[in-house]
């Protein structure tokens, strides 16, 4: 392995990794917001919005991120909606992740016994208060494993951003392979950087998961 090459191009990978993480984090935060919004709409059975949210979830879950990005980045400008690659990456990830988060939160809420809501109601809590103080905390701990799986899934999905010319890790690796034929080193760095990003998330996730399971929220 050519260590000099690795040393020389390490900063490039660092920059790319930072970009990947930035877009990943922003996209995931937006996904969570969209997920919460859809879940609230579903929970309170808001008419019309409920059908729209359901359609969004189906569309988003049954199409690949790469196609979503192509459409947002290359298609939408043709009808006057112009964005930069960065915003486009965040939007694409949020569009995809929102539905995954929505499904996760929804099934978490569904898993909380209905009589818990009634119990809250009998104490005079309003629907919103019951959701906030009683249902949501329980749903969060139930859906945490699925939530972490979503986070890792979305971070992994960022690997397609190079298709809309974002200089992320994949882009950098492909570029270096094409330019210098230093395939082994480029791929090595690629794997290492993805491990650096994903392994800690995965480990922290399973630690929290274990604690939650230990706490055992069963009544």
């Amino acid at each position: 392995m050519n260590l000099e090459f690795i040393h020389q191009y390490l900063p490039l990978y660092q920059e790319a990794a930072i970009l990947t993480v930035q877009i990943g984090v922003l996209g995931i935060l937006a996904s969570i917001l969209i997920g919460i919004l859809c879940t609230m709409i579903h929970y309170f059975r808001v008419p019309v919005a409920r059908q729209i949210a359901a359609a969004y979830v189906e569309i988003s879950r049954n199409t690949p991120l790469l196609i979503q990005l192509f459409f947002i980045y290359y298609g939408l400008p043709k009808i006057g909606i112009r964005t930069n690659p960065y915003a486009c990456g965040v939007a694409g990830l949020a569009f995809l992740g929102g539905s995954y988060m929505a499904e996760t939160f929804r099934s978490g809420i569904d898993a909380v016994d209905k009589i818990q809501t009634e119990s809250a109601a009998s104490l005079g809590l309003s629907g919103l208060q019951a959701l906030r103080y009683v249902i949501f905390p329980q749903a969060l701990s139930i859906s945490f494993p699925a939530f972490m799986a979503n986070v890792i899934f979305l971070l992994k999905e960022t690997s397609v951003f190079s298709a809309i010319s974002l200089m992320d890790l994949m882009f950098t690796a492909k570029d270096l392979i094409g330019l210098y034929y230093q395939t082994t080193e480029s791929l090595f760095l690629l794997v290492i950087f993805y491990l650096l990003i994903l392994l800690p998330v995965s480990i922290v996730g399973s630690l929290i998961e274990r604690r939650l399971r230990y706490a055992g929220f069963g009544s």
Partner: protein
Amino acid sequence: MPDLGLNVLFKGKNLTRLLGGLGVALQISLLSVGISIVLGILLGVLMTWKNPVSRVLTRLWLETVRIMPQMVLLFLVYFGTTRVFGWNLSGEMSAVIVFSFWGAAEMGDLVRGALLSIPAHQYESAAALGMSGAQTYRYIILPQTVRRLIPLSMNLITRMIKTTSLVLMIGVVEVLKVSQQIIEANRMSSPNAAFGVYLTVFFLYFIACWPISVLAGYLEKRWK
């Protein structure tokens, strides 16, 4: 009404070409699904073994595909094997290898989960009724396992179909590549083709995946 660039689709053989491109993607995914299911069942049974070596190896396999983006695995196989082994794998071949490697691990985990979810009482009560081991599997365990497994593996199929869109990045001429070619060729006559064509591709994928998801959801509810 702005030009949505949908007209290019009806020019010449564009729509047929687009569908052909989708066909390539679907072929890759179906082939990978087939291999994944066979390998995955074996792997899943292996995962339930108490043998520490098989445990560590299968676990390592699963964690690798869980942590590494499929895109990275594609690069490793497509570019890496050429470099290290001197093989010259086609993009399609690399894709099938990677997706099968990934799918088998995911499938294996589903099989493992389904097998472990059958309570020990089921084995015991079958034994108490005088059933042999084979009879227990044939009449008690397999029917329950399969019911849990089918909806989940259908979801895996849709994931597989969606993931095949990535093969564009290793030079396979599939639906996105064909789209790019069509858009490029009609740059002058139809400058907004990117909107219409990508929108079409978007819905082609949706049409391919959605029925499977709906059926999986239906079966999951019905067999609960």
